[in-house]
């Protein structure tokens, strides 16, 4: 075996022979990315705008693991015995709560940020698996309403395209106070994506850089939000659930206030949540990760004894059935996915299909200065796979029916992963997962999730 070991004289990068090792020493404070960013700022004179979500490493659901059944707990038959996934949202005040077949919903993403084909594909897929989609900051598109059996209509600070007729067509209303990608900030859609149709829906001139408001135009603060919620309920005969969506920051207080203001459902969007465009500084430096956000939100509801009346929906970087199962165990009633279904649609794929033929999009990614697997260029409107664009040529690269099939497959797989873990924990209903089913793999995750470090009884920060 010794001949397999590298010889002492071998170099990893022979091309750098002439540069001494010390001359290539990487700075932790100023790595090449930081240097590039400073140089870009010096050239252009403004902050970096991009899409996607936080890219930094954060404590996440990956840092938790389930204590599945053995002798002390008995499992359900993983391939045979039923594990319920049905989920009801909005039972507090709404006479017509939302009934979902799975606790996995599609988050608000605007028509404008996404192409009509992408919105149609998401709606079609959600309908097929029995869940809801959400409109986004640009009004309700006819395609989405037609495709989506259960549609949540967002009421955002911009109020682009918000109107009574669409409000009545909606199945639920989501008042967006903030989002995890940019809690405290307003929406953004750069001029490249503001086509005539998008501009018309938003009552703005085509081509403007839309920088939306951070505060609602007609109320500020929880005392006035309470009146606003009543208005929306009155306008819809108290039929539709009212969600309040928060970017995760001061979660405990904000959740309690949303409940005091009259929310049926509180949506908490963690720091990993995605967006079509915002400042990089916001994405990487504002809000708290989804992991502690779920725990704090669930604890806040329990503290005011409302966990059985108000449902908690959690979002921000959720990708898999294990993420969903962990969010549910920590106290969420459902989760909301944004980036993940886009990836299922083909976001960051190397290829796209057109007229049944596969085409390589690598060159188009390169033209944007990126590669498949790394692209966060939604803000440019030049999406190489036709998802985050308003360019008809590019949009034609996404076939809505084919995209829907991929999203259906993805959502089904996530649900199977979820029920696999739930059954193994001995649950006949995914909503019976509880924090006690989890342990943490890192001290940070144990502290943030409020579950013991694996192999110990220790929850950092808790009295023993």
């Amino acid at each position, binding site marked *: 075996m010794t001949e397999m070991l590298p010889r002492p004289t071998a170099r990893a990068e022979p091309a750098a022979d002439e540069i001494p090792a010390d001359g290539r020493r990487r700075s932790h404070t100023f790595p090449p990315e930081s240097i590039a960013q400073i140089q870009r700022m010096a050239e252009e004179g403004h902050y970096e705008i991009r899409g996607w979500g936080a890219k930094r490493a954060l404590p996440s659901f990956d840092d938790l693991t389930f204590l599945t059944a053995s002798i002390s707990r008995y499992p359900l038959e993983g391939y045979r015995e039923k594990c319920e996934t049905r989920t009801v949202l909005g039972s507090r005040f709404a006479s017509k709560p939302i009934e979902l077949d799975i606790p996995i919903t599609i988050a608000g993403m605007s028509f404008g940020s996404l192409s009509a084909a992408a919105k149609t594909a998401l709606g079609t897929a959600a309908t097929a698996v029995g869940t809801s989609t959400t409109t986004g900051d640009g009004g309700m598109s006819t395609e989405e309403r037609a495709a989506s059996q259960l549609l949540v209509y967002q009421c955002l600070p911009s109020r682009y395209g918000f109107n009574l007729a669409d409000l009545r067509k909606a199945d639920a209303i989501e008042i967006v106070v903030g989002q995890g990608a940019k809690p405290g900030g307003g929406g953004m859609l750069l001029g490249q994506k503001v086509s005539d149709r998008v501009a018309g829906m938003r009552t703005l001139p085509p081509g403007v850089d839309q920088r939306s408001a951070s505060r609602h135009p*007609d109320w500020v603060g929880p005392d006035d939000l309470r009146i606003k919620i009543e208005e929306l309920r009155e306008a819809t005969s108290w039929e539709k659930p009212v969600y309040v969506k928060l970017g995760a920051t001061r979660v405990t207080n904000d959740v309690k206030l949303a409940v005091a203001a009259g929310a049926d459902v509180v949506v908490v969007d963690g720091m990993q949540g995605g967006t079509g465009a915002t400042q990089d500084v916001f994405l990487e430096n504002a809000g708290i990760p989804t992991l502690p956000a779920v725990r704090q939100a669930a604890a806040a509801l329990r503290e005011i004894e409302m966990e059985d009346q108000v449902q908690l929906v959690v979002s921000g970087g959720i990708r898999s059935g294990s993420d969903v199962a962990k969010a549910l165990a920590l106290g969420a009633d459902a989760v909301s996915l944004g980036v993940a279904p886009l990836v299922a649609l083909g976001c960051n794929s190397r290829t796209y299909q057109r007229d049944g033929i596969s085409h390589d999009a690598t060159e188009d990614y390169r033209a944007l200065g990126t590669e498949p697997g790394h692209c966060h260029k939604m803000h440019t409107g030049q999406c190489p796979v036709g998802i985050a664009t308003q360019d008809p040529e590019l949009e034609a690269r996404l076939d809505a029916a084919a995209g829907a099939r991929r999203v259906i497959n993805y959502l089904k797989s996530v649900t199977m992963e979820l029920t696999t873990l739930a059954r193994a924990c001995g649950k006949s209903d995914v909503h019976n997962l509880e924090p006690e089913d989890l342990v943490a793999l890192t001290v940070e995750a144990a502290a943030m999730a409020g579950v013991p470090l694996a192999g110990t009884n220790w929850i950092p920060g808790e009295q023993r």
Partner: protein
Amino acid sequence: MVQVTEADTVLNCAELSTREVNAALAELPDGTHARITEPWGRHNLAVGLSNSCTIEIAGNAGYFIGGLGAGPAITVHGFVGWSVGENLMSGSITVHGNASECAGASAHGGRLVIHGDASARAGISLKGGTVLVGGDVGHMSGFMAQAGVLLVGGDAGDALGDSLYETVIYVAGRIASLGADARIEELTADDVLTVKRLVDKAGFDHIDPENVKRVASAKQLYNFDALKDQKY
């Protein structure tokens, strides 16, 4: 101040919940008239209605009066709270009194007439509606207004028309200060005609259409100023 009008339906807020009042209003056949009595600052009266009825509110009302409306003609004999006629789609709201902040916020259509003063942020985020104020408006009025018209018969507070898009603001009195990207433009013959038409509709008799200032967007904030390199 309260005018007594023949009403098909009388709804007394002292006896009815907001839900009961609004449910009764939603059932009104087109062309009928309802009168809401003893509102005592009640919020959310006559919101989200799409029938073509006339509604009179006899007294002071609270927030969001006539909000989201798409049809009725509402008259208030009294003061109204925040965000009267917010997100109005069509129809009209007439207030014989003062309006608090954010009057006509994000109104997409219809006509809001305030015979008294409006407070801060009148016509904020306006999207095509017509907001006619006989008296003064407070600071940040017309903030981020996208389309439609705001007419001020009295004086305007600080930062008028900040971050204005395509809304045009006419002011008969003084302007304390203009907001970012708002500028005073020359009054054209078309403007005079528009103002005359609006003044007539509102029933204002103290505004000389030839003596108003036209405030519109300088359009310098439509795109990032670093747009020239097209790199974001």
